[in-house]
């Protein structure tokens, strides 16, 4: 039975739940999108502040379904942060694309509930519930530009593949339950006898596969470029940060605590292939959204390097990389969104080819500088946050005696620099072909400033985040 006082530990979650229902009601009764937007943003902000305030909570509550500790709260902070940043830029993008419906905000909040649940889950069922809540919302969001064929295509592809892969995940849970008779994660962790059982291993393997799909790892990465390309840009940014972060945040503690070395080889191989495919195919891209999509596949590979390490340093690395990633990847997508929405013809997905970035530095030096900083950070060039993220991850791999893996990872991330630089060269060293001007809304500017500040601040003082979440 749920005790009333247990609810104080999940105030952020409750805030979001209440806000999401409220948003729906406001939407149907008044159709006032300002209020909808304000409620949404405010609730996420409040949830973020409360999560930061309550960072030191460590408890298992709600009939052993929810596990709150500083790691889960830390990941929640990152997720909330990226949701907040994407919300800020969403508004002007949606208005420009004429899809500024209240449902968008409600769905964002629903997916946020799913993510937070998943991150805090102490039970496979809650994991599944959260994952599905998140995924279904993502399917809708990907197709949110319902009159655009590409958006519909991306939603359908995502839905088909997602539903298919969820089947494996569910089958994995079934097998685990079948062998152990429980879905409680704590019990599963502690019962080491179980860890020898082949069916259990296969169950966890299938479970892992479900998550590898969500974070876009090879060979389950095929949906990523198509979906990110077709979805509204801001949604792509949102999915590639918040969604991926939540998935990593869920699977990593589970794999870490199960501590079964058989998965290390699987994850290492998958991570190498993921980095290879992400980085190498990105070289040939001429569409900025697809380029960022492949770069996000590569990033998933880096995260898996940490996942393969199975140690506390890896947890550190993943926490930090996700934080840095939410700033720089989202920042990059926001810039792409700004450039896309300013296209004069407002046709289907104009202004997302690399050609639109020619001579950007001459037309709008501020925007070009900002984008360059994000790309530098994504490429892992110090002193930006992205560098430290990769650094911690690779150090974790070295500590786990996976020296070969970290060497491969470093070499492959060198390839990555090439395509980021390609964009930078387009912006700075070619002549402009158009004379479009770019309008930055105040909220979008705020989001960009926050992202830039985060990218630089955490690049200069990487340790501060860990002090914030009391993770030493």
């Amino acid at each position: 039975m749920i005790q009333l006082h247990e609810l104080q530990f999940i105030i952020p979650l409750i805030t979001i739940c209440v806000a999401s229902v409220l948003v729906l009601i406001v939407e149907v009764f008044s159709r006032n999108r300002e209020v909808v937007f304000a409620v949404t943003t405010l609730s996420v902000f409040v949830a973020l502040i409360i999560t930061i305030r309550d960072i030191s909570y460590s408890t298992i509550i709600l009939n052993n379904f929810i596990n709150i500790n500083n790691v889960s709260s830390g990941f929640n902070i990152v997720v909330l942060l990226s949701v907040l940043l994407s919300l800020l830029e969403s508004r002007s993008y949606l208005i420009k694309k004429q899809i500024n419906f209240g449902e968008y905000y409600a769905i964002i909040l629903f997916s946020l509930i799913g993510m937070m649940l998943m991150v805090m889950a102490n039970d496979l069922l809650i994991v599944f519930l959260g994952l599905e809540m998140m995924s279904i919302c993502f399917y809708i969001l990907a197709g949110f530009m319902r009159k655009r064929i590409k958006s519909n295509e991306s939603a359908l592809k995502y839905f088909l593949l997602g539903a298919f892969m969820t089947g494996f995940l569910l089958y994995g849970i079934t097998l685990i339950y079948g062998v152990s008779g429980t879905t409680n994660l704590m019990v599963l962790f502690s019962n080491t006898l179980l860890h020898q059982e082949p069916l259990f291993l296969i169950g966890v393997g299938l479970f892992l596969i479900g998550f590898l799909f969500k974070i876009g790892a090879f060979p389950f990465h095929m949906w990523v470029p198509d979906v990110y390309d077709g979805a509204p840009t801001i949604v792509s940014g949102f999915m590639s940060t918040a969604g991926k972060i939540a998935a990593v945040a869920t699977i990593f503690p589970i794999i870490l605590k199960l501590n079964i070395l058989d998965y290390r080889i699987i994850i290492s191989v998958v991570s190498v292939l993921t980095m290879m495919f992400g980085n190498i195919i990105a070289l040939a891209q001429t569409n900025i959204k697809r380029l960022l999509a492949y770069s996000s596949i590569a990033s998933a590979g880096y995260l898996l390097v940490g996942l393969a390490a199975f140690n506390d340093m890896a947890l550190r690395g993943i926490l930090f990389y996700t934080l840095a990633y939410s700033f720089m990847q989202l920042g990059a997508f926001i810039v792409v969104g700004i450039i896309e929405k300013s296209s004069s013809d407002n046709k289907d997905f104009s202004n997302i080819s690399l050609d639109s970035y020619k001579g950007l530095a001459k037309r709008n030096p501020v925007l070009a500088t900002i984008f360059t900083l994000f790309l530098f950070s994504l490429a892992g060039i110090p002193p930006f946050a992205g560098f430290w993220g990769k650094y911690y991850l690779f150090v974790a791999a070295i500590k786990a005696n996976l020296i070969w893996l970290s060497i491969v990872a470093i070499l492959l991330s060198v390839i990555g620099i090439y395509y980021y630089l390609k964009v930078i060269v387009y912006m700075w060293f070619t002549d402009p072909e158009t004379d479009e001007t770019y309008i930055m809304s105040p909220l979008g500017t705020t989001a960009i400033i926050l992202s830039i500040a985060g990218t630089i601040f955490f690049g200069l003082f990487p340790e501060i985040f860990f002090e914030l979440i009391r993770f030493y």
Partner: protein
Amino acid sequence: MSDLFYLVTLLPLLGFLVNGLLGKKINNEKITGIIGSLMVFIPFLIASVTFFQLLSFNPEERSIFVNYFSWITAGNLEINYAFLIDPLSMVMVLVITGIGFLIHVYSIGYMHGDPGFAKFFAYLNLFIFAMLHLVLADNFLLIFLGWEGVGLCSYLLIGFWYQHKFTGEAAKKAFVMNRIGDVGFMIAMFIIFANFGTLKISEFLPQLEGYPLNDGLLIAIGLLFFLGATGKSAQIPLYTWLPDAMAGPTPVSALIHAATMVTAGIYLVARTSLLYALTPVTTQTIFIIGIVTSLLAGTIAIKQNDIKKVLAYSTVSQLGFMFIALGVFAYHVAVFHLVTHAFFKALMFLGSGSVIHGMKDEQDIRYMGGLKRKMKITFITFLIGTLAISGIPPLSGFWSKDEILYKVMSNAGTVYYIIVLISAAITAFYMFRLVSLTFYGKARYNEEKIHPHESSVMTIPLIILAVLSAIGGFIGMPHFLGVPNVFEEWLAPVFSKSYSVFESFQPSVEHSVSFEIILILISVIVASVVSWYAFKKFSKQETFEEESGFGKVLENKYYVDEVYDTVVVEPIKNVSDKFLWNIFDVKIIDGVINGIANYFSKLSFDWRKLQTGIVQDYTAISVAGVIAIILYLLLK
């Protein structure tokens, strides 16, 4: 007050941000100037209060360690953003913020009407910020951050009037020469971390105590740090950038290239004095380099005609004196001379700025003369500075220089004493030549076009600095006069270990009071006679002849720049042009790189064909992945 101490570094940064980002928007010289000056003045006040607080402690407890946050943690490497407030850093902070403030105020007048006014103040604030890190930091990495920061600001400010080609070249030269020194600093840092496992000074120095004298490792570290110091403090072989750095605005020359930044090398050696006390070989090197630099720069200064160039070579020469002091294990004396030199050299640079400003940017002393009556305050203050640097009692320079001479006599011997004395005499000679040519005699400029004048915002700092130059030396009077040497006592806790090491291998020689008085008399007589001679010789001079013989060599600065060009720069250019660029870079490096890049581009075009866009294919590939993973788990 140490609670508020973080403001000392934070406020200059704030000033930099405000003036740097909003300077154009504010577009008001007064506000910009006041913000810039206040952001240095408030730290000065805080530092003063902290100083008195330290004073109220027991001498042994006068060091406060403030840890703000952990900056980088990676494996064994743990770098904290932490400050060490002890007597030595306190002296430096007071000098930096105090003189810095005066120069900020002065700049309000000097830079009046310059289009880059706000930028200038932003850079100055940034410089103060970096310099404070340099002297306050507790670990070498943070020192290095400040070290590079001041180098950057120096570069930015030398090239401040970037429209002229030569300012850009001078800035580049300063930067490159400093980088050579920085390499030494960095390698020293690496060696320390590899061998001592820490970069914290407070952990590094105690570890040294067990080492024998002249340990090879310590010599290496000491020499490498000293290489860094020669770059920053303009010593042989890396001194040639400093005279060129005079291309920057004069307040910059006063603040960065006379009073503060160039003393960073002295500070570094003093901070790690235990290292040098343990390695007499390194100290010997420092001593020799100091002597040669002071002589070389002093002689060059005799034949220079640019008012700022004379002062620049004089600075190099005086820095040489400080290294001489370090080279005879007299660390507190070096710091003492650093402080007095900061007073009078800042004063003279600002005075020269006032002259240049009043003379409509004329810098050549051959076209000055007779300014005594027209620029009274400038003249009087400049004369005080000159008397101070020449070592005329009881001005500040006398006390510090005499202390150096005395230490050389007792720790190095009579021969060296005479050499250093000659060097001191040269100082008096060229300084009085400068004063005579500038302020005495008849006007040698076009009096119809140029009307020398002074402005009050510029003269007030001059007066304050003149007072400091006059009386600043009383804090460090020698013992035999019966008054306490407060400066030595103040610094005693910092250097006590170094001195005990030094005394362990060289017992201190007690000289009689009469011997000390004789030395003082000798130096006073020499300084006065030379000054008088120079004054007589130059105050009447009206015509200037082409230099010949050795004079020409001096005028051309011993051709050191030319030698560097032919011996170092040209060969490197040749090798890099003919071999490194055309063969190694273009053929080998580019060939390999382009080959790899082409390979991956091709691979990319092949692999992207996997991305068919058909969901069935995606599913098939996913299923293949699932099967592979399950098979692995089954068959492993």
